[in-house]
C-alpha cells in the first residue's frame, strides 16, 4: 500500500522530447491512407461505414485523425489517441470513484464512468446467493472509494454506458502493487491480459490503458487458493526489496514506452527492462530524460539526429 504510486506526476519534459524528434520520417504508414477530420475517404460504392466515419451527402468522410482500416466492405478510422472505447470482454483496471445505491461507479478512462453492480461481484464466501440489504450496507467494505479493481466489461448499454463484472477469481480488488496510466491505444487487445513476466513480476494490462504491476504471491510460492476477490489485507513485508525494485523497474519501463508512444506488450516491456539492466541503470535514474532518450534510440534503432 505504501508504495502505491500513480502516474500523475509525469515530467512534461518527456513529451516535449518526443516533439523535437521531427527528423524521424515514418515510412510504413504509407500503405494505408491517412485522414484528418473532414477528409474524404477513398472508397468504392457500397461500403459499410464503421467507427470514425460519417456520410455527408455523397461523400464518405472521416471524423477523427488516423489511418483508414478496411476489412472487406467495412471502412473504419481508428483514432491515434483517444479515450478508451470499451468492447464486451475487455479486461480493465479501474478506480472506484463513488459508491451509490447497489452499484459502484468506476473510473476506467472512458467517456463516462463505468458501473459495477453489486449483483455483478463475487461476494465473500463464494457461494451464489441473493444480495441482501446487509450486503448493500457493507458495500464500502468490499470496494471503497479510490480502491483499484480489475474487472471485465460485461455489457455495453445503448448510450455507451459500460457495465463491469468481477465474477471470476481473476478479478477483484488490487492491493500491494503499482499503478500506471498509459495511452489506451498502446495496449492491444489480446487473449491474455494477465501476464507473468520473466523477472518475476506480474502485470495486468488493462485494455483501458490502466496497468497494475504487482508480485503474485500465489504464483511465486504456491499457497492455498485464497478468496482472490476479497483477500485479507496482506502485509507487504512479504515481498523483498529486490522484488519491489523490479516492480518499479517494470513500471518505469512502461513509462518509457508510453512517453515515446511505443506499443506496450510483455515483450516490449521486458526489452526495455533488460536493456536498462544491461546498461546497469539504477531504477532511480530510469526516468531521467537523457537516459530515456538513450534507451529509446537503442530499442528503436533510431539514428542520432
Amino acid at each position, binding site marked *: 500500500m505504501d508504495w502505491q504510486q500513480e502516474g*500523475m506526476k*509525469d515530467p*512534461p519534459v*518527456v*513529451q*516535449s522530447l*518526443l*516533439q523535437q*524528434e*521531427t527528423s*524521424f520520417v*515514418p*515510412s*510504413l*504508414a504509407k500503405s494505408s491512407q*491517412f485522414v*484528418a*477530420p*473532414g*477528409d474524404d475517404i477513398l472508397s468504392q460504392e457500397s461500403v459499410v461505414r464503421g467507427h*470514425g466515419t*460519417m456520410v*455527408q451527402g455523397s461523400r464518405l*468522410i472521416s*471524423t*477523427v*485523425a*488516423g*489511418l483508414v482500416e478496411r476489412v472487406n466492405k467495412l471502412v473504419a478510422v481508428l*483514432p*491515434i*489517441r*483517444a*479515450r478508451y472505447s470499451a468492447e464486451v470482454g475487455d479486461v480493465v483496471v479501474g478506480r472506484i*470513484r463513488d459508491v451509490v445505491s447497489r452499484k459502484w461507479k468506476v*473510473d476506467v478512462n472512458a*467517456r*463516462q*464512468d463505468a458501473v459495477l453492480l453489486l449483483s455483478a461481484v463475487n461476494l465473500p464466501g463464494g457461494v451464489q446467493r441473493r444480495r441482501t440489504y446487509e450486503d448493500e450496507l457493507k458495500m464500502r467494505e468490499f470496494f471503497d472509494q479510490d480502491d483499484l479493481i480489475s474487472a471485465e466489461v460485461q455489457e455495453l448499454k445503448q*448510450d*455507451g*454506458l459500460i457495465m463491469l463484472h468481477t465474477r471470476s477469481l481473476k478479478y477483484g480488488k488490487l492491493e500491494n502493487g503499482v499503478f500506471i496510466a498509459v495511452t489506451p*491505444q*498502446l495496449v492491444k487487445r489480446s487473449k491474455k491480459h494477465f501476464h507473468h513476466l520473466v523477472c518475476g513480476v506480474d502485470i495486468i494490462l488493462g485494455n483501458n490503458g490502466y496497468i497494475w504491476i504487482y508480485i503474485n504471491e500465489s504464483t511465486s510460492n504456491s499457497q492455498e487458493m485464497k478468496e482472490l476477490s476479497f483477500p485479507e489485507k496482506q502485509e507487504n513485508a512479504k515481498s523483498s526489496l529486490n522484488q519491489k525494485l523490479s516492480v518499479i523497474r517494470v513500471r518505469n519501463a512502461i513509462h518509457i*514506452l508510453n*512517453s*515515446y*508512444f*511505443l*506499443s506496450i506488450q510483455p515483450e*516490449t516491456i521486458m*526489452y526495455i527492462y533488460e536493456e536498462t539492466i544491461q546498461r546497469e541503470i539504477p531504477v532511480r535514474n530510469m526516468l531521467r530524460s537523457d537516459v530515456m532518450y538513450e534507451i529509446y534510440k537503442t*530499442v*528503436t*534503432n*533510431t539514428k542520432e539526429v
Partner: protein
Amino acid sequence: MPREELISPDGLRTDGRRPLEVRKITCRIGILPRADGSCHLEMGNTVVLATVYGPRELSSRQPFSGIIRCEYSMATFASTDRRRRGKKSDRTSVEIASSIKKTFESVLLTDLFPHSRVDVYIQVLQADGGERSAAINAVTIAMVNAGIPMKDLIISCSSGYMENTTVMDLNNVETLVRGPQLTLAIYAHSGKVALAHWESKAAFEIFEHLIAVAKEGCLQILDVIHSNIEKYSLRLIASRDSISRK
C-alpha cells in the same frame, strides 16, 4: 495627431508582410501528457495554449448528447495592457469563450458521447492580434489530438481594411486602428462560415472583399495545420511499431 503608416509605399505592412500574407504558424501538438489533447500554437507573435479534457463523466445525467465547456483566459503578461483583470470575470474573455463553445458545438459529434462533457481551456500567452483566430485554430488541433469525433476542421483567420487596402491576419498594431475588422471561422472542407465576428462598421463595398480575404487566409492556414496534424499523427503511428529486437 500624427498617424503611423500602416502600409509602406512599397505595399509592406508594419511587420514586413504583404497585405495578403498570413503570419508564420508553428504548432506543437500533444505537449501536455496528462491532458487528452493539447496544442501550443504560435501565429506570429500571438501564442495560445489550448487544452482539451474529455469526453469525460458529467455529474448530471440530464442532457442526452455531450456538452462542451470552454474557458478562455489571457495571461497577465500576454500584452502591454496594464489593466488589472480577473480571470473569468473579464467580459471579452467570457464572450470569446462562449463564441468558441458555440462554434465547436456545431462541429463535434456530441451525440456520440452522451452524458459526457468536453472541457476546453484556452490560455493566451502572448497577445499580438488575432487571439480569437489563434484560439479557434489551437482548439481544433487539440480536439483532433484528443481523438474527439468531429465533422470537419474549423479554421479561423482575421481580415481588416485600412488605408484603402484589405489585409489578412491582423497583428496588434493593425487591430488597434479599429477599422473594419472581421474574424472569420470556416469549415475547412465545405468552406461554409462557422463564425463571423465584426469589429466596427464596414462599408457595403468592402464587406464581401473582407470575407473573401479572410477565407483565403483560412485556406492558407488550413494547409499548415493539416500538414502539421498529418506529420504528428504519422510519426506516432510509425513510432508505435518501431520497437523490435534486432
